[in-house]
């Protein structure tokens, strides 16, 4: 099975939407207090969950059309974007330790998917 560009595009878009959804989850989570309205009217949380579900649909569609070993490295875009949103929107420090950790995880994911062929 070869990997058509449509499969790559689906996984890339899925990773992007997933990372933005995660950022909304963080934004919505920070707004939570003990009062029930902070959950009920929390549009960021709802948007985040929705985007996460949409991203998984894109993933499933993309992965069914192509080879995992080619597609999974594209998931790395999602991780890198999430680091970017953390810096831009939540002013988190991106230390070299964090970059090393994320790098290791990405390598591990690629290895696991090569092993699953």
């Amino acid at each position: 099975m070869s990997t058509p560009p449509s499969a790559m595009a689906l996984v890339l878009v899925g990773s992007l939407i997933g990372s933005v959804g995660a950022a909304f989850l963080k934004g919505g989570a920070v707004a939570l207090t003990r009062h029930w309205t902070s959950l009920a009217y929390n549009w960021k949380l709802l948007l985040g969950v929705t985007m996460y579900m949409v991203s998984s649909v894109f993933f499933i569609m993309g992965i069914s059309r192509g080879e995992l070993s080619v597609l999974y490295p594209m998931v790395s875009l999602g991780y890198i974007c999430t680091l970017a949103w953390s810096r831009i929107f939540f002013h988190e420090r991106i230390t070299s330790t964090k970059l090393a950790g994320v790098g290791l995880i990405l390598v591990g994911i690629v290895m696991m998917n090569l092993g699953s062929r």
Partner: protein
Amino acid sequence: MSSATTSLSPAAATDLANRKRRSLIIVLCCTVIGALAQVLLKFGAGHLSHPSLWQAAMGILTNPYLFFGYACYGIFAALLVVALRDGELSLLYPVIALNYAWVSILSVVIFHEQMNALKIAGVTVIIAGVAVLGRGGSKA
């Protein structure tokens, strides 16, 4: 450019570090529950390849594996949100990759899928990456 902790009193900074560590532990438990959810869903959806929306909805209500699988996903999401209140996104989001590691191990144990050197190495590298993140996060 400096992080928030440099402007806090020592007591508040310790409290923040404790809350961040707690959020990391929550996410670690999360990944196990998330992996359990995926395994349950795999069990339940085995016979359906491309279910329609109606079939999926009926499946969740009638199939206990699908039901508990999605219930676990709900718990996973709720715990993740709780963890994100205190924890940094750049720290917690990659830790979710542990999900892959647990699903791989569970797949070998429950579905008798093949384990090979690359998979074992991959799982080890992912766990190493998470360990590095865990150390890096609590220092800041």
